[in-house]
């Protein structure tokens, strides 16, 4: 009797310790994330003693080391948004269609081959993609389109699209794959063709998953640094065509942070740019969270 209760207590204690262990592991990553965010704001906000929020966000000129300096990141924000939007235009059809093909019409053997290859794209280091864009794609674009420089918005968007295709493809593939078989079978049984089934049944049923995939792919593109640093061109101007060089926010931070004097206005301004970037990625994540909650697939009956 006594022995029994002891082992019971022992097991409970063990249980508690394990629970505490996992709790603290989970807490560690949350704490670190919180500290990073606090640090980001702490180092970024002092710039607003010097420049108003409006002038910072909508100022047209970025001359941080001039005397007097100009801290306007509007061209940088526009650059980030256009590059991301352009890359979405390229990567969404590519990613979603690949996913549809792989789940709906590719043979099992082909699928086994193609899927890992697409996912391998995600494993390519961004600096390799950047180098590829700089050395191979840029001269090629310049030649083909007869433009002054191949280091521009279009090239950067193209390379970013390569990077977000695997994300979009594999997440939407999971979403499409998890569409209940009954739906598909019912549609086919009613005499719909495969195309009609895909367009009218499978796509709507997996829309929430695909939207999540797209937004995650885009948030990868907006935060990507190396690629835009190497091939977006880096001109802090508002682009007037897709072949204009631009400077997205991460590129500006990466290029200038290393040598900005510690805790100078320039340093604060770069951190504040980081805050803006963080706000964008946070927004993307919230939207994807919202979409996947709102259109959650609960089962075969939800359509």
């Amino acid at each position, binding site marked *: 009797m006594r022995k029994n209760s002891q082992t019971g207590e022992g097991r409970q204690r063990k249980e508690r310790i394990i629970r505490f262990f996992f709790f603290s592991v989970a807490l560690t990553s949350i704490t670190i994330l919180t500290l990073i965010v606090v640090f980001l704001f702490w180092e970024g906000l002092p710039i607003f003693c010097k420049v108003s929020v409006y002038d910072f966000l909508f100022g047209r000129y970025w001359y941080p080391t001039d005397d007097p300096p100009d801290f306007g990141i509007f061209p940088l924000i526009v650059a980030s948004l256009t590059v991301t939007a352009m890359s979405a235009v390229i990567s969404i059809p590519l990613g979603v269609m690949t996913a549809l093909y792989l789940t709906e019409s590719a043979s099992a053997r082909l699928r086994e081959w193609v899927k890992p290859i697409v996912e391998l794209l995600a494993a390519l280091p961004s600096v390799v993609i950047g180098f590829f864009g700089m050395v191979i794609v840029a001269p090629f674009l310049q030649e083909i389109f007869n433009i002054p420089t191949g280091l521009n918005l279009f090239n950067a968007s193209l390379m970013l699209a390569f990077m977000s295709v695997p994300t979009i493809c594999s997440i939407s593939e999971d979403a499409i794959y998890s569409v209940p078989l009954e739906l598909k079978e019912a549609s086919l049984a009613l005499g719909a063709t495969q195309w009609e089934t895909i367009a009218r049944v499978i796509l709507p049923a997996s829309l929430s998953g695909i939207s999540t995939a797209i937004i995650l792919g885009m948030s990868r593109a907006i935060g990507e640094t190396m690629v835009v640093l190497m091939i977006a061109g880096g001109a802090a101007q508002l682009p007037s065509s897709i072949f204009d*060089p631009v400077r997205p926010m991460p590129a500006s931070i990466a290029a200038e942070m290393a*040598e900005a004097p510690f805790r100078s206005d*320039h340093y604060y301004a770069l951190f504040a740019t980081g805050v803006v970037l963080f706000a964008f990625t946070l927004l993307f994540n919230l939207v994807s969270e919202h979409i996947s909650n709102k259109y959650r697939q609960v089962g075969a009956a939800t359509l």
Partner: protein
Amino acid sequence: MKLKRIAILALALVFSFTSTMVLAGNLVIKGSTTVLPIAQKVAEAYMKQNPDVKISISGGGSGNGIKALIDGSTDIADSSRFIKPKEVSLAVEKGAYPVPFAVAYDCIVPVVHPSNSVINLTLDQLKAIYEGEIKNWKELGGPDRPIVVISRDTSSGTYEVWHKKVMKKDRVFPGALLQASNGAIAQAVSKNKNAIGYISLGYLDESIKALMVDKIVGSEETTLNGTYPVSRPLYMFTSGWPKGDTLNFINFVLNPEKGQKYVRDARYVPLY
């Protein structure tokens, strides 16, 4: 009043004395990130020859280095510019007398694609190009092609020289492309027939063509005799005439057989 001043001076002397005592065998170098590669390479070699001396090196910019020198928190301040009058008076107030040693020269050359027929530009033409006023090589006697202007990130030392010596502190126009290093500019220019960029002399190679500025070729010789306009000396400052380890280190840096060899390794122009 006078007594008080003398007392403070004496106190400062005692302090500086004790601080050098504490730091014996240790050398602190701080300052310009432009001079940093030289300091690092030379210090590595110096420590190899003198294992009992520990040298700690950090960047932070010329201004911070000189400030640290005045505070007494560094033995040597690296600087990519000469000390400013305000800093001198601040130093003298604190009883420190900064002594400059030019340790190397930084020479910046404009570069273009090897196929470009332009070989010489004046300072005014360079300025107009970087201000976005001259937009076509035709206007400079070259082929009818648009000019793609490539500049450095505004916090780099190379940009600083260009901004001061070529732009005369006017702004580079926003349409200029940005690259984050000398190597990246060389790479981008070698891949683009329309491009013009500027790099440190040490990064020149066959894939790009250096232009003359005001008909003067940028070289070690023209940098040292002062005729080439886009260059500047790099300094190490000490507080008072150097003594002990600091003196040994400075001598090592200036020795053509020793420290100056590493200046070329760091892609700058050595003094001799």
